[in-house]
């Protein structure tokens, strides 16, 4: 964003110069008893002040607007469909896209786990049954008929173990691939962070500039007392930097300690 470091400062200096020049003129006119001219000078001072203010507000508004409009990234390659790209045109849509991608990846992963888990547990169960029969065979506690059946079961089991192993390996691979959302969502989130940062910078400039204007014009604002509520019933979401904060627990152990200190 093309903004001077402190636009308010520049405006204030410009205004102060203009004020000094005009003040001398004003005194001259007043001393000469030329009140009509004096009023014109006062009007010019007012205009200079307003011009500076409007100029700064205009500049900052444009910068903010540009920052929001320029917030475009090419997601065509990610979605493979150009009609989809037009839908993703602002930050909240982009964040929705992050929610969609992460949701899809989480569900895909859970689908594959839910398919794999019963297969593995079935295989484990059969292996356990076979092993106990195998031990009976080793202890020579098995009749010939039973042995022929075990012989066949062993063959079937080996085939099934091979197939299940292939299936589950494939699913594990697919689970790995389902994590590719991280790259795409990471890029989107970084863009949003940049946008938020730019907007914050612009707002800070606006605040600084407003401060300068207040100083020049001598306006005092009554401090508005901000009421801080202890906790929100809505919740606050995940806390970051939990390990360095006193008011936040950094894991289950600390929750347990806190609750047991309360008599839980």
């Amino acid at each position, binding site marked *: 964003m093309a903004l001077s470091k402190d636009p308010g400062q520049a405006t204030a200096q410009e205004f102060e110069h203009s004020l000094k020049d005009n003040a001398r003129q004003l005194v001259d006119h007043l001393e000469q008893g030329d009140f009509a001219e004096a009023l014109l000078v006062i009007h010019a001072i007012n205009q200079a002040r307003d011009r500076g203010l409007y100029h700064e507000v205009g500049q900052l508004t444009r910068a903010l607007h540009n920052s929001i409009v320029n917030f475009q990234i090419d997601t065509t390659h990610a979605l493979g469909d150009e009609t989809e790209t037009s839908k993703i045109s602002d930050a909240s849509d982009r964040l929705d896209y992050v929610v969609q991608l*992460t*949701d899809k990846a*989480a*569900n895909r992963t*859970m689908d594959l*786990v*839910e398919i794999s888990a019963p297969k593995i547990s079935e295989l484990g169960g059969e292996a356990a049954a076979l092993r106990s029969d195998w031990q009976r065979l080793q202890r020579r506690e098995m009749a010939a008929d039973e042995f022929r059946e075990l012989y066949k079961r062993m063959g079937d089991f080996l085939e099934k173990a091979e197939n299940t192993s292939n299936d589950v390996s494939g699913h594990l691979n697919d689970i790995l691939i389902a994590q590719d959302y991280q790259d795409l969502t990471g890029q989107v989130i970084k863009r949003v962070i940049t946008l938020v940062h730019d907007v914050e910078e612009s707002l800070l400039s606006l605040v600084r500039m407003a401060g300068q204007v207040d100083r020049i014009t001598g306006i005092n604002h009554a401090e508005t007392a901000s009421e801080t509520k*202890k*906790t929100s*019933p*809505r*919740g*606050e*979401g*995940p*806390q970051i930097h*939990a390990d360095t904060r006193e*008011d*936040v*627990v*950094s*894991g*289950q152990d600390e*929750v347990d300690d*806190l*609750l047991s200190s*309360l008599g*839980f």
Partner: protein
Amino acid sequence: MKILIVDDFSTMRRIIKNLLRDLGFTNTAEADDGNTALPMLQSGNFDFLVTDWNMPGMSGIDLLRAVRADERLKHLPVLMVTAEAKRDQIIEAAQAGVNGYVVKPFTAQALKEKIEKIFERVQAK
């Protein structure tokens, strides 16, 4: 044992449902916030409630308070599974009568321990 899982994210509900199934609890139902959960609890003969805190509509803490204020539901064991990690919030939940508190991200082990602990205590009463 009938369990209601309340979370606004379907993926989290699914994770909890899977973990509960691994622990042998197969009779579960789902709701996406307190407003949908409360009528289900009032008419559904649930034995256990697992709820998130931060949800649109009615939050988990308000659901907990509504459950404790309901004559028929007030003894229902409630486990909170949430990303809310402020000490004040945990104390608030404890004061509102929560039976267990698990912070996200959590492990299957942590969930299992809390659930077992809650059932031990409920049965001891």
